[in-house]
């Protein structure tokens, strides 16, 4: 397999891998490193790549496991870094500043969710995967995915409502 062929396989989902890693690891740099690791692992095992029936789902599962390992590692426990990703949200800035502020709130709320809920929200609402795909990636059954998703969505909604109405009602 040549590099070009490999890149053709990987390109459609490498952004998804990155976003999932970022959802779990928060820091952009960490997520970039994680994505790089995942892609290099895939490249090193390129001979076996044909055997996987769904490379994308396989990579997402790999990403999830890799990020969990990262979070559990000693390095992460000893050193608590507060990640502040300074970046230009120019897309959102087209809207009102107020709205942008509440968008940030959504990010913060999702960050405070349990890991499983974060994953499901990321895979469903942002990456728009089917329930059975998510179930396969996370090694859960579909009902459990739905329940987790519902809980996450409700938490986000409630907290947003609270912030939105803070001081008003």
């Amino acid at each position: 397999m040549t590099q070009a062929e490999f890149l053709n396989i990987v390109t459609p989902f490498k952004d998804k891998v990155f976003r999932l890693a970022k959802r779990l690891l928060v820091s952009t740099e960490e997520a970039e490193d994680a994505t790089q690791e995942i892609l290099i692992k895939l490249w090193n095992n390129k001979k076996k790549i044909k055997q996987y029936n769904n490379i994308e789902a396989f990579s997402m599962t790999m990403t999830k496991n890799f990020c969990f390992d990262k979070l559990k590692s000693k390095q992460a426990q000893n050193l608590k870094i507060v990640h502040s990703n300074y970046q230009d949200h120019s897309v959102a800035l087209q809207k009102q500043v107020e709205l942008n502020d509440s968008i940030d709130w959504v990010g913060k709320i999702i960050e405070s969710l349990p890991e499983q809920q974060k994953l499901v929200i990321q895979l469903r609402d942002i990456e728009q995967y089917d329930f059975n795909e998510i179930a396969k990636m996370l090694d859960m059954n579909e009902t459990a995915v739905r329940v987790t998703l519902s809980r996450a969505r409700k938490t986000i909604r409630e907290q947003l409502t609270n912030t939105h109405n803070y001081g008003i009602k």
Partner: protein
Amino acid sequence: MVLNNIEKLLEKYDNGETTLKEEQQLKDYFSQETVASHLEMYKPMFSYFLENQKEQFTKHVPLKTKKVFNYKWLSVAAVAVLMVSIFFSKPFSSEETYSKEEQQLAFNQVKASLELVSKQFNKGVSQVGYLEVIEKAGTQVDYLKEMNDPMGRIFKN
């Protein structure tokens, strides 16, 4: 009418029962400028999702094509070197053969010296032959034992 529909969808959405298509409808609705005021809190949620879809991975991934050195071949090479060295070292040891005449000569020499040794040995043996006389005398002295017998009887009495 539309609002009614959206509200229904939102309820399904909160229970995790919407399909991807229905979720797309919701996202479309909430990306409008104005939404119903009582649904305002959903707006940032959906715009957050839409915004996050756009984030991309830009870092370069170094894909090495260089093969990692395989230590298996090291042992193969070692075995090959060993075989070659054995193959070349064997003829040197078998080359030190003697001709038939030399072998015969050596055999004769050994034979002669061994003969000499055995001759001298036999001579020695014949000189020691008189020791047999001592042995004969020894047997003749055996009758002294018989003397022990009457002496024992005497001491008993």
